[in-house]
């Protein structure tokens, strides 16, 4: 690494085995850094040079170039190198490269490839780069794409899955054993962190040489900064996992507590000196993630976790996940009294740690199905935040989801959750559909199925597909199997359509049933009943007929509970299958109706409009009066504030 020019020269030995049942005729590589090579790359065209509240610095473009790619017999494939743009045909995009092989690789056969490359890191942007002395190197080397066998992720025939680098997409890669040696100027000695375990650090002249090793991961990132405070801690399950949490989750999962045993993990925190006060927040939140996800899904299988606190001005590299290596994000302002109690940096750490499971071990295709990593991760982030800090971190997301449903162009979510990242209507649709909507789908399932059933199913899915590449269909099938119910209709609507879930009570009436009067026949006898004297009638004699009209306002079909509450305190419930457009419920009883509701327990988290979920027979003026009193007060304050200029 030449730290003066932010340029590195590398050699890569790749041993690749054809695990498919088909012959492989070529090798495809991601050259991700070329996304930053010009303003014409697909990434830059889509992002406009702005991403994650960060702007690209055009003073230093980023690129990667392969100078040779040789096979064992010395054949150099550089001459047949071909850049492709399978997603959009952009001729200026050089993020996907193809190298035809001189002969096809048979199923099960291994190939060794020796690559020489040069990478120019950009100024920190979109997860990678170098600012000053601070380096965060992600996607810095030629990265082999995934060769998918027929049947994998529903694929009809075997082939490479290699997409261009898009503004809203992350990555997709195969598992491998990484053994990486880095050579940097010696001012970085002791201040380098990376995926995996540091096995060697030596000095050679004015350079420091470090070697990191990590089997069973699908990416390798590293960082260096002379100013890092390097702190270590240990996640010790004996000390760091409360017994009551283990007991609770074991009962959900129906497993003995010993089956939930976790393993110790060495935590390394590379912290900016200015954030020294926040070391404990980083460690504690990482531990919360290790126990929260470990107990629910299975123990974190690696021995190390490195947490990076990005340098100031390099926020574009924050909030990112790589195997055994995550980047957080905080600022000095978070130590001020006003913000001290807001666990925002903790939320970021927990979110990125949760990615160790969803994308780290469940290595889904983030290009095509971003919800599997971002949505499920957001769900678990929310779970861990709630149990650790008592904060439902998705509350804002819920509102965002409803607001999006109402205002999103063109009226309602424009895209299904399962949409390729580059095909979303806009960045907001990508954000809501990848993060908050799928997280709400999972919360909805947890609420409607119950935590036991839900968490067991999620554990089955994780255990079955860890260290592989499951698709949405794999998730749906496994989840349904584990739950023991066919949820295909739910998933088809929730994940593959833009249908809105919305039930309402449009009308509710209760009227007194008149006593029978007139001529009747009883056991062959004709009797005549007269109109009863109202004055003599007591309240207990009255009978009311209550009729409630429930409607399915949206296209989403879903069973829903209806509840009637009567003046005498009695409540009646029934479940309507929600298939038809409307449902009439008529009951008779001794009391008048007070209110009628759909989804009285608020379990349908995906309900796009909760206002219409019920009707009160008599208007309640108290709550609205209180609201108006507050509106009046704050409007007066606002007018007084304007009056500062009067």
């Amino acid at each position, binding site marked *: 690494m030449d730290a003066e020019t932010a340029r590195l020269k590398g050699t890569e030995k790749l041993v690749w085995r054809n695990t498919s049942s088909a012959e492989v005729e070529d090798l495809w590589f991601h050259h991700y850094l070329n996304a930053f090579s010009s303003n014409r790359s697909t990434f830059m065209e889509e992002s406009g040079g702005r991403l994650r509240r960060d702007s690209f610095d055009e003073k230093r473009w980023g690129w990667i170039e392969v100078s040779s790619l040789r096979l064992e017999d010395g054949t150099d494939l550089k001459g047949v190198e071909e850049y492709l743009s399978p997603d959009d045909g952009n001729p200026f995009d050089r993020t996907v490269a193809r190298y035809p092989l001189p002969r096809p690789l048979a199923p099960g056969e291994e190939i060794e490839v020796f690559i020489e490359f040069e990478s120019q890191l950009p100024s920190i942007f979109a997860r990678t780069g170098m600012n000053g002395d*601070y380096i965060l190197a992600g996607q810095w080397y030629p990265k082999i794409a995934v060769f998918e066998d027929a049947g994998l992720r529903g694929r009809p025939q075997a082939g490479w899955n290699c997409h261009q680098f898009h503004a809203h997409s992350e990555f997709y890669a195969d598992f491998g054993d990484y053994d990486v040696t880095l050579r940097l100027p010696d001012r970085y000695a002791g201040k380098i962190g990376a995926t995996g375990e540091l096995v060697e650090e030596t000095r050679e002249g004015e350079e420091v040489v470090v070697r990191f090793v990590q089997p069973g991961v699908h990416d390798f990132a590293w960082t260096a900064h002379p100013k890092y405070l390097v702190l270590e801690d240990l996640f010790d399950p004996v000390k760091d996992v409360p017994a009551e949490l283990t007991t609770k989750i074991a009962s959900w999962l129906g497993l003995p507590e010993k089956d939930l045993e976790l393993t110790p993990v060495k935590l390394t925190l590379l912290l900016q000196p200015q954030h020294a006060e926040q070391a404990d927040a980083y460690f504690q939140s990482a531990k919360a993630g290790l126990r929260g996800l470990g107990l629910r899904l299975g123990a974190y299988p690696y021995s190390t976790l490195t947490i990076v606190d990005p340098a100031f001005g390099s926020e574009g590299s924050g909030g990112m996940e790589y195997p055994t290596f995550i980047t957080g994000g905080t600022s000095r302002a978070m130590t001020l009294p006003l913000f001290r109690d807001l666990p925002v940096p903790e939320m970021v750490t927990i979110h990125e740690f949760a990615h160790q499971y969803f994308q780290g071990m469940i290595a889904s295709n983030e290009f095509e199905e971003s919800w599997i990593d971002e949505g499920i991760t957001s769900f678990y982030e929310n779970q861990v935040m709630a149990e650790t800090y008592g904060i439902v971190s998705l509350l804002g997301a819920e*509102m965002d989801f409803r607001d999006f449903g109402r205002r999103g162009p063109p009226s309602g979510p424009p895209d299904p959750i399962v949409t390729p990242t580059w095909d979303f209507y806009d960045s907001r649709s990508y954000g809501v559909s990848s993060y908050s909507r799928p997280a709400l789908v999972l919360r909805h399932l947890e609420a409607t199925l119950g935590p036991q059933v839900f968490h067991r199913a999620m554990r089955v899915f994780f255990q079955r597909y860890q260290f592989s590449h499951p698709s949405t269909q794999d998730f749906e099938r496994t989840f349904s199997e584990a739950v023991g119910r066919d949820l295909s209709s739910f998933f088809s609507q929730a994940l593959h359509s833009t249908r809105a879930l919305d039930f309402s009570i449009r009308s509710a009436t209760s009227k007194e049933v008149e006593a029978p009067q007139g001529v009747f026949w009883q056991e062959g006898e004709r009797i005549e009943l007269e109109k009863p004297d109202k004055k003599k009638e007591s309240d207990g004699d009255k009978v009311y007929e209550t009729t409630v009209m429930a409607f399915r306002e949206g296209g989403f079909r879903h069973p829903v509970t209806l509840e009637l509450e009567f003046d005498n305190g009695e409540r009646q419930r029934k479940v309507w299958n929600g298939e038809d457009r409307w449902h009439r419920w008529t009951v008779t009883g001794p009391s008048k109706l007070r209110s009628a509701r759909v989804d009285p327990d608020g379990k349908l988290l995906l309900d796009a409009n*909760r206002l219409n979920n019920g009707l*009160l027979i008599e208007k*309640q003026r*108290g709550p*609205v009066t*209180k609201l108006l009193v507050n509106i009046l007060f704050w409007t*007066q304050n606002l*007018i007084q504030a304007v009056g500062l200029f009067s």
Partner: protein
Amino acid sequence: MANLLRFSVDRVRDHRRLVWVLYLTTLAPALLWAGLMSTHLFSGFADRPMAEDLLGPKAFMTWMEYTASPDTKVGAVLGLLPLFLVASWLLQIYVSAGVTHVLVGAEQSKDGQRLPSTLWAGMHHFGGRFARSGLIFLVAVVLLLVLVGSLGGVGTALADGSEDETWKLRIFVLQVLLGLALFIPLDLAYDLSRISAVAHDGRKMFRGFRKALGTVVRSPRYWLFYLGFALAAVAVMAIYGWVSGLGSASGGVAIFLMFCFQQIVLLVRSRLKLGLWAGEVGMFRESGEPTWCGEGRRPPVAEPLPQLGDSSFVV
């Protein structure tokens, strides 16, 4: 300072009804606004079970849910808010012209029969000038914001250069302090120039503002006087926040008590505002009643005001 404070207290005591005028100036438009909202809230919210959550700790989330619903109609009313605020600003400009006229005018009028006519005469005669002055002040504040805002770039550059983010924080704190420190003389000069315009029937509002600013800049104790009133207003709101955090009103009586408490808070703030303005009249007297805005053809206020330190208003 003590003289100014005494003068302010005396003037407010002499014109207690002006507190109500200021209070009603905010209450009336707010009532109109709340009335507009109420038509939607009572028809589309009061019959929904969700509204019952307004009484509990989830009140804010419930309100957000309500506004996010496609069935809600308050969006149209909320969209009118900017227009409404501009109208209320104009109203307050005219009322401040009347109030200043009363404060600058004969102290003998007190809360006697002359108050409505003096107030109205001030609104009628000086309202337009006050509106012009208001625009000048608005421009000055915008320039101040641009100036203070541009410091943010300095903070970022310093932080980037030194890789020390505390520079950003330090500069931010400096921005806030500087913004407040510069706002105080601007607002004082704004008020004093208007007092001068009323006292001498002056019309040159920009000139008045400029000259008053020069005087204010040379009188830091006036800033402290202003700061005292500003901090008192902040303290009132802090007390409100503390009291309202003690619990959530759910019953009819509790809601009524909450309403009363809120309105008392606003009355106190109106009184503080009047106290500040009265004190500024004292500053004007102390400065020798300068003709910053020029002199008009109309005779100045009917009776000369007593000077600071005169036994007639020293308690």
